[in-house]
């Protein structure tokens, strides 16, 4: 190597070091006090949402603009195309959006790296939220963020197919036996009785109805007898051909199967009502509570919250905005605009009056289970779902044993 080459190398290395230091300096200025107080400044508020469509976008924009006019704080709503990725980029840059949609799944990871602020205890209306929803956003005993709305799963029935099979409103199933029975009756060559996705997010309702769960009091209980019984029930019905996975009947998800009329019943949440209204307005259907299993009623609930960035310079104003957005009045407006149910108890009666055909969804809130809030749960459920695809031929106990060992591993961490 010549001397000149060596010198060049040193220069390149020096350049690299300098740029690294510059980058490091840029990244460091975002540090905050960390004593739990909210920051306050004149900075405008940025709200990042993952929207289901124009209806949702416009409703949120309108609400935020109204708050902005009232409070005098500038605020802007941005719509993310890939929310998870854009949030991660924001946190890494040190200049994240102040408020954003966040799922319980994401909360675990973002809480672990300190990106989100636990502001639940500062909310004036914190006692108005359903307790189950608050638990969805509680990590290590801290209530992180305000639930923005929620959905539960229910049984959606195609009225025409129901009548065709000679069934009436008296025949809506209330037990597993009745569900098997009616599924058998409505199954024809063209459609199956009941369809759902091959995932815990749907099949989990049977586990709940049998008295099972994934985690109870911080302990993994995935391979309980109740869960085995639930999977066995689903497996038998799948093999009989009266239940089917959506993918096996060429549908992307339950709603798709229902819209294509290849299933007489599906297990879906509130979101299916918007989908049916937009894509299949001519199909008439009825929403009823899911049938009870050996241990009673059971369903699963899904929710998102208004996450607040730890690095936000104006958390005080953001908190004010969250309180505005989660007021009963505002939540009812959102529910009317794009579907999901208000997350506060004080809005329940009014919502039921406005949506008599969807009462079953809200009734489910009383006994709904939810995805355990623990780091790594996404992977464990992903692995569970991968195996549920083979439920027809697999041994339920063996599947659940693996889920159990995966759960134990993440719970002990």
């Amino acid at each position, binding site marked *: 190597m010549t001397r000149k080459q060596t010198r060049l190398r040193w220069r390149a290395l020096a350049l690299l070091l300098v740029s690294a230091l510059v*980058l490091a300096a840029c*990244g460091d200025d975002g540090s905050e006090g960390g004593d739990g107080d909210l920051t306050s400044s004149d900075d405008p508020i940025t709200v990042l949402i993952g929207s289901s469509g124009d209806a949702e976008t416009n409703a949120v924009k309108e609400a935020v603009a109204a708050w902005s006019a009232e409070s005098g704080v500038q605020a802007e709503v941005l719509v993310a195309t890939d929310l998870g*990725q854009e949030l991660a980029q924001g946190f*890494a840059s040190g200049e994240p959006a102040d408020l954003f949609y966040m799922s319980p799944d994401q909360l675990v*990871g973002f809480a672990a790296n300190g990106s989100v602020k636990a502001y639940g205890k500062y909310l004036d209306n914190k006692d108005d939220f359903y307790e189950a929803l608050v638990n969805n956003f509680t990590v290590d005993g801290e209530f992180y963020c305000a639930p923005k709305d929620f959905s539960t799963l229910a049984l959606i029935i195609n009225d025409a197919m129901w009548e065709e099979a000679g069934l009436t409103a008296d025949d809506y199933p209330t037990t597993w036996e009745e569900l098997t029975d009616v599924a058998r009756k409505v199954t024809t060559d063209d459609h199956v009785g009941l369809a759902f996705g091959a995932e815990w997010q749907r099949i989990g309702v049977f586990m709940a109805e049998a008295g099972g769960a994934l985690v109870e009091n911080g302990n993994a209980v995935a391979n309980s007898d109740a869960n085995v019984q639930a999977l066995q029930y689903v497996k038998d019905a799948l093999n009989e051909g009266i239940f089917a996975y959506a993918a*096996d009947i*060429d549908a992307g998800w339950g709603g798709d199967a229902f819209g294509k009329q290849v299933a007489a019943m599906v297990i879906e949440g509130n979101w299916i009502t918007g989908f049916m209204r937009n894509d299949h307005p001519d199909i008439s259907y009825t929403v009823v509570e899911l049938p009870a299993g050996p241990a009673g009623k059971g369903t699963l609930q899904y929710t998102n919250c208004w996450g607040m960035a730890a690095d936000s310079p104006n958390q005080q104003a953001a908190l004010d905005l969250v309180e505005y957005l989660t007021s009963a009045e505002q939540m009812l407006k959102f529910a009317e605009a794009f579907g999901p149910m208000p997350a506060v108890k004080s809005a329940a009666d009014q919502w039921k009056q406005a949506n008599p055909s969807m009462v079953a969804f809200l009734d489910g809130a009383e006994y709904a289970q939810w995805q355990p809030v623990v780091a790594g749960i*996404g*992977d464990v459920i992903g692995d569970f779902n991968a*195996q549920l695809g083979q439920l027809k031929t697999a041994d339920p106990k063996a599947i659940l044993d693996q889920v159990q060992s995966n759960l134990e591993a993440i719970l002990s961490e």
Partner: protein
Amino acid sequence: MSDRTGSKACRAGSSGIRRGEAVAGWVFTAPVVIILGVFLLIPVVMALWVSFSDWGGRGSPLSGRVNFVGFDNYTDLLFESGLGARDFGTAIKNNFWYVVLVVPLQTALSLFLAVLVNNAVLKGRGFFRTAFYFPSVTSSVAITVLWLFLFTGSGVINQILAWFGVHGPNWFNDPTGVGHALLANLGIEQGPEFLTSHGFLNVSWWDWLSGPSMAMTALILMAVFTTSGTMMLLFLAGLQNVGHDVHEAAMIDGATAWQRFWKVTLPLLRPTLFTVITLGLIGCWQVFDQIYTGTAGDPAKTTLTPAYLSYSRAFRQQEWGQGAAMAFILFFIIVIFTAFQRWLLRERTPKQPKEKRKPAAEGAR
């Protein structure tokens, strides 16, 4: 070769009258050096650092809150037995079969197509060249969507298979491994003890033998379909640099067309072949868009690939260290595979006509 001697000559003359040229040279190259540094070198070095750190995704990875954790992220992936390590092993297995099938298939097909459209007597050569190249210029997202559509359970592919009495699988929802399916045809349903109880990267040898799933097979067909056009173009450039005189000489020596292809054309295409296989290996190990837009690893994780897993580990689970570590493990795998094929394609005969080799190599670029 000739390049290096050229620059040496330049350096010898860098004193005296040509002194100012070095400065001018640096000024002219500065934009590229800076752009490469900022957008390539620094990100790569930072990613390397992240793979050795406990950075969680908040603030700069170079801030004081981030700690050096040594090889923890790497050992977690390679030597642990948890779910994370198992997923990584599965992803490597899936991608291994993808590479092993796509690279030879696309190389053979593209060479075949190149020879076809290089044929002087072929009518409408321009049309065919464009037609074969078309899939390569179409967005991979668009083609993935098309593929998902073609390969549904009641899709076009299965309807065509039905004409021949074949009951096609529900492609993108069928996790059955092709290898296991073949073994099952031979009556082997369960793996023997010594295969199921031992394994590599948390995947038992029996599972390694499963081969690509039906879903992955559909993706393999798609990769061959989309990339062959580009590779064909490279081969075409190589073929056009093979002088007509060589063929003439071979003909005079009495070689048949078949012999001329194997003994004359193919050896002269060696540099192009190297380029094509290397590009193929890199592209195949980094397969991402099809998975991201198409299957997201489903069914039963049989289309999970390291590149996609790296992305989801980082962006979805906030395990940035492991995500970066995966990227570097992938880098080493690619280097090893490339070195291996370089060794495989090495020149075994000491002397080759030099003036023929160079233009071919240039064509390959």
